[in-house]
């Protein structure tokens, strides 16, 4: 919906040698997924990796709507949750009838659940884009989440429906009891889904989705019905959200109404946007970061929600292209070989910016823990919230960091302009 002229997904294909690096990236991702649990083998990391994997699929599926087709949804968790519920019910049915369906096939069931809901409600929902779609998605989200508490026989009330993933038939001796096996199951589906969703962007439908995002009116005059295009996008997004929901159901062995709720819908919006919606890999970065923060931040500070809000506001204001946008901005500079002229200014700016960030953190924590709580540990230094020295440090870091950072960032901008001009002259930047 924004008309900012950012290039869409990698046009890199036409360059010689890029095919190799293209497949290389996917291969590298696959290897990383396999190796990760061997490097970080603690139970905690396994749990985190599993959740991050699910979040990646969910965020990518959301980006089919927001990044690819320009549909802002406030109710994406509906498909995710319904996929999860269907998966749980099917797992229970499979277990009780001893059907020969192994656990790794269950996410597909979730996907079908998500897609089925999208097929049913999608046609009326996608009639219009923009605010109307956003508000309908909000309304549908609230409706389904509330109805799930009324239709107890299906959704099990607020306690939800539980299942036992080990009661399905084992596959190659794997029972999927241990978390490591579940991790590999999730990793497999992350790979499959990511490849499928990437492939989708390379199809005629995927391209037309982008056209609909950029200019739905014009699309009508090249033979396409934008409504049908949006409907398709909604279905695919629903399918992959359902896959993510199915995996969540396997991971937690429970599905409950919280899966469908606004929190879940908000989180996926956060992930996709923070990562950057203009590039395929953006939501992956966002999902990793947001899940990580969610897991980690809640244990270090009680006011994690405030940090979440501040990070989000910061991204919206200063980097609306998300992390991926920031990274990709540097690509022409790298190609033109002018990046090194910018790096020193970055390094200079990093110090006061870090000080400013520490100032914010110290200020927030001081307020939060003023009336009691553990001392604040920052870079290994303990600060006591009630001590005037802490207040002074916070103030110095905050104000000083801000003032100096502002100057250094101006320098960065200047260095950037110079580098970009050179890059433009060399033909790497339009």
């Amino acid at each position, binding site marked *: 919906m924004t008309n900012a002229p950012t290039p869409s997904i990698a046009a890199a294909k036409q360059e010689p040698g890029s095919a190799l690096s293209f497949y290389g990236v996917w291969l590298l991702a696959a290897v990383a997924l396999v190796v990760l649990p061997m490097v970080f083998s603690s139970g905690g990391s396994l749990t985190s990796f599993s959740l991050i994997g699910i979040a990646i699929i969910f965020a990518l599926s959301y980006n089919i709507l927001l990044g690819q087709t320009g549909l802002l949804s406030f109710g994406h968790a509906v498909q995710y949750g319904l996929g999860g519920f269907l998966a749980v019910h099917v797992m229970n049915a499979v277990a009780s009838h001893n059907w020969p369906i192994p656990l790794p096939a269950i996410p597909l069931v979730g996907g079908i659940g998500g897609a089925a809901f999208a097929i049913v409600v999608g046609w009326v929902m996608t009639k219009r884009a923009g605010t109307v779609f956003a508000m309908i998605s909000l309304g549908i989200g609230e409706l389904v989440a509330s109805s799930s508490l009324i239709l107890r026989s299906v959704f099990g009330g607020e306690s939800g429906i539980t299942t036992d993933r080990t009661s399905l038939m084992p596959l190659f001796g794997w029972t999927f009891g241990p978390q490591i096996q579940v991790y590999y199951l999730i990793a497999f589906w992350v790979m499959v889904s990511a490849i499928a969703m990437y*492939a989708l962007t390379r199809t005629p439908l995927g*391209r037309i989705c982008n056209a609909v995002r950029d200019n739905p009116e014009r699309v*009508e005059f*090249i*033979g396409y019905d934008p409504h049908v295009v949006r409907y398709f996008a909604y279905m695919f997004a629903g399918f992959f959200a359902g896959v993510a929901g199915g995996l969540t159901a396997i991971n937690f062995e429970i599905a409950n109404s919280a899966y469908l709720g606004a929190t879940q819908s908000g989180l996926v919006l956060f992930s996709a946007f923070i990562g950057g919606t203009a590039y395929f890999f953006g939501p992956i970065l966002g999902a990793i970061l947001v899940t990580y923060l969610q897991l980690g931040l809640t244990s270090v500070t009680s006011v994690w929600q405030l940090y979440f809000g501040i990070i989000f506001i910061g991204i919206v204001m200063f980097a609306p292209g998300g992390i991926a946008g920031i990274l990709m901005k540097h690509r022409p500079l790298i190609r033109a070989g002018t990046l090194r002229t910018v790096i020193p200014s970055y390094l200079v700016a990093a110090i006061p910016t870090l000080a400013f960030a520490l100032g914010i953190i110290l200020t927030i924590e001081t307020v939060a823990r003023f009336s009691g709580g553990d001392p604040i540990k920052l870079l290994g230094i303990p600060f006591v919230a009630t001590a005037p020295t802490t207040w002074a440090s916070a103030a110095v870091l905050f104000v000083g960091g801000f003032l100096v950072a502002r100057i250094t960032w101006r320098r960065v901008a200047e260095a950037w302009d110079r580098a970009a001009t050179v890059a433009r002259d060399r033909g790497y930047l339009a």
Partner: protein
Amino acid sequence: MTAAIQVNAVEKSFGNVQIIRDLNLSVAKGERHAIIGPNGAGKSTTFNLISGHIKPTSGEIRLNGEVTSGLRPFEINRRGLSRSFQVTNVFARMTVWENVRCAVLWATGHRYAFWKNVDTLPEVKQRTAEILDEIHLSHRRDVPAGLLTYAEQRELEIGITIAGGASVIMLDEPTAGMSHAETERAVALIRRLTEGRTLVIVEHDMSVVFGLADRISVLVYGHIIASGTPEEIRGNPKVKEAYLGEEVE
């Protein structure tokens, strides 16, 4: 022989304001037809009616003999009519290449396909490359359309319009805002690209109109007051009256 476009007694009102009154227009197949008229005469509205952007209040529009009034724009487009816009209307965040390619996809039968790799469709690739060549934008193929110069965007606009291979092409002020040299280039381009097709064009630049058109219709206050060859229009007193006002009396 059926006309490419046949407009019969079309009326269009917005609220109480009647914009188009008893509009009758016939464009023969293979003809280059220009619509001229003073500002606010309803030229763009006529375009919007024919291309399905808005629906007529009453009357009938036929494309190659088939009734199209009441159809949606994409349905009309699929029946062989393609139009451009007065205000540049491209896919800003997509590259030039992708802009044109999107316009090729439906016509080459790929529709909503989600099982084909768009990069490996030979006829799509070939056709897109041809169009880019024709509109002289091959060297800009990987630039996002939003970053093109104005003249380049106008050329891209024409490229998107003709890419689907429609038999009837409608161009809404294709040279508006262009310099003299750019205009000449654009006219040559239009002439070449619409060879063997039906062309309907709205234009303010009279040199373009009289140089390009086989026939001209003059639209005043939502009504066609004259239709004919450029010579006939030049000599028509009603046209003079409309353009020159009371002075003729």
